[in-house]
């Protein structure tokens, strides 16, 4: 995920205050006004910085919360229905995506059973199911790219449910 700088506004306020100070006249009243303005600007700047820091901290908290769930969502055999645990994890990721305009790539995967091209379609359905849930919950679709790898990129190479269950997944990247 990419992140936008949030300190931009604070910097421009600081610049305006400095400019104001440089242009002030020599009279006492003007000096007092300038000092008051500078103080106000400094206060505003501090407020902005505090807000930005709080926002950044909140973003980080949401990212950490999402990261704690991991970025892989698992599916049942031949199914593209989101499981409750996947929805819980997705909600955390969606929250982390609300405060920025990062783009995500959803990669759909299947286990080795069934034909390769059918699995390619099934992997797409899984990626689309995740995408649709994110869109319904406020992530604009243009920020989401989906791609299906079918059964071509297994996590676990062996056969049997213990391997297959690891491979039926959507990865958020």
């Amino acid at each position: 995920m990419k992140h936008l700088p949030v300190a931009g506004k604070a910097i421009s306020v600081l610049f305006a205050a400095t400019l104001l100070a440089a242009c002030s006249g020599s009279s006492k009243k003007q000096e007092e006004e300038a000092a008051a303005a500078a103080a106000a600007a400094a206060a505003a700047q501090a407020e902005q910085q505090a807000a930005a820091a709080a926002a950044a901290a909140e973003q980080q908290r949401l990212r950490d919360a999402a990261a704690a769930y991991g970025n892989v969502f698992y599916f049942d055999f031949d199914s593209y229905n989101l499981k409750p645990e996947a929805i819980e994890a997705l909600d955390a990721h969606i929250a982390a995506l609300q405060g920025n305009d990062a783009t995500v790539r959803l990669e759909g995967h299947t286990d080795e059973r069934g034909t390769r091209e059918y699995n390619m379609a099934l992997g797409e359905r899984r990626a689309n199911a995740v995408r649709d849930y994110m869109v319904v919950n406020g992530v604009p679709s243009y920020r989401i790219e989906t791609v299906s790898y079918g059964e071509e990129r297994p996590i676990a190479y062996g056969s049997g449910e213990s391997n297959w269950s690891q491979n039926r997944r959507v990865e958020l990247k």
Partner: protein
Amino acid sequence: MKRLFLVITPLILVLSALTARAELTIEITQGRDNPTSIAVVPFNWLEPGAAPEDVAWVVDSDLARSGQFAPVSRSDMLGRPSTQQEIFYRDWRAIDSEYLLIGRVSAQGTQMRIEYELYDVVRQRQAHRGVETGPINEARMLAHRVSDAVYEKLTGIRGAFATRLLYVSVTRVPGGKDYFRLTLADSDGARPIVLLESREPVLAPGWSPDGSQISYVSFESGRPAIYRQNLSTGAREQLTAFRGLNGAPAWSPDGKNMAMVLSKDGSPDIYLMNLASKKLTRITRHYAIDTEPTWMPDGRSLLFTSDRGGRPQIYRYDLRTGTTERLTFEGSYNARARVAQDGRNVVMVHQQNGQFHIALLDLVTNRLQVLTSTELDESPSIAPNGSMVLYATKHAGRGILAAVSVDGGVKFRLPSREGDVREPAWSPFMNR
């Protein structure tokens, strides 16, 4: 798709310089009960030095692999005739050899000439004779042509030994990105050439009807795209790069169109691309998964897999009437059909008792016969003469190729020395 472009790819098209690591060997696991006994005597090399290829051994192996012949072991041969005058029929009757193949190989410059004669030991007469000429470096292909002629003479069916295979092999990199290779080899797995190597998936290889071009799907751009490539020039063209699926390319029998799966309009549907104009025609329009198109040999209809009935089954779309009919009703999973040149035998992946096998559906009798008993069988491909089905399966935890005759009577494996091998695509008959 914004633009179509043609790229020559000298870096990834490695012709003959690179030996594929996934070279295949052959293990016959099941033959016929009463195979025809034939002695393929080592052909006489008429030039000084060692012969560049043991032509007779190539023929011997081809005939053995068909399962319909039991070649006589060389150590059992009581003589090594190479001309009619040198034949003593009693030597061959003594070891119950029904047929005898002898030959002579000569060379001039870069050209090789194989003269051979087939004898009927029981009737004590010549059954066939022939000559094959061509470049010395194509000696194995010339030998396969001898096999084709002998096979046709004795079975009445055109031989398919002088054909080629495409397959995908994968070298696993646990925790990392696997290596994918698209390989071209002779029908016996010999002389493998790596056409494409990528750290991104490569799949769905197929042939143009004249065998001069191939098609496949590659993820090398980070997304799936359909490519076609000319085998003699190496020129490669990217045909699609649509949003969503770009898969399952299948050349029409007249070579003018390519059926494919695209999901750019929502769900996976079958489209036809005119290869000259690149114009697309949408064939199916359904919210279900429609995929794996394949052509009937007459080019008038397409078979495809769809889960529109709830589970994947095979359907036929008639291009003239625009009607769709379901073809498979037995079992809960029938997918990825391939049709024999007779337009009658259809092979597919069929699920039975939770296992995936290769099954054959006879379109005339509507009888479905399960041909294989291995596990996780997929990607069936029929020989151009309709005799054998090559498919991918798992053996000892690795992906290998295996073959079964269309009557299920003959079975053999083609294990590779390294990596997983899958998605075999048997070429059409090659123009000489």
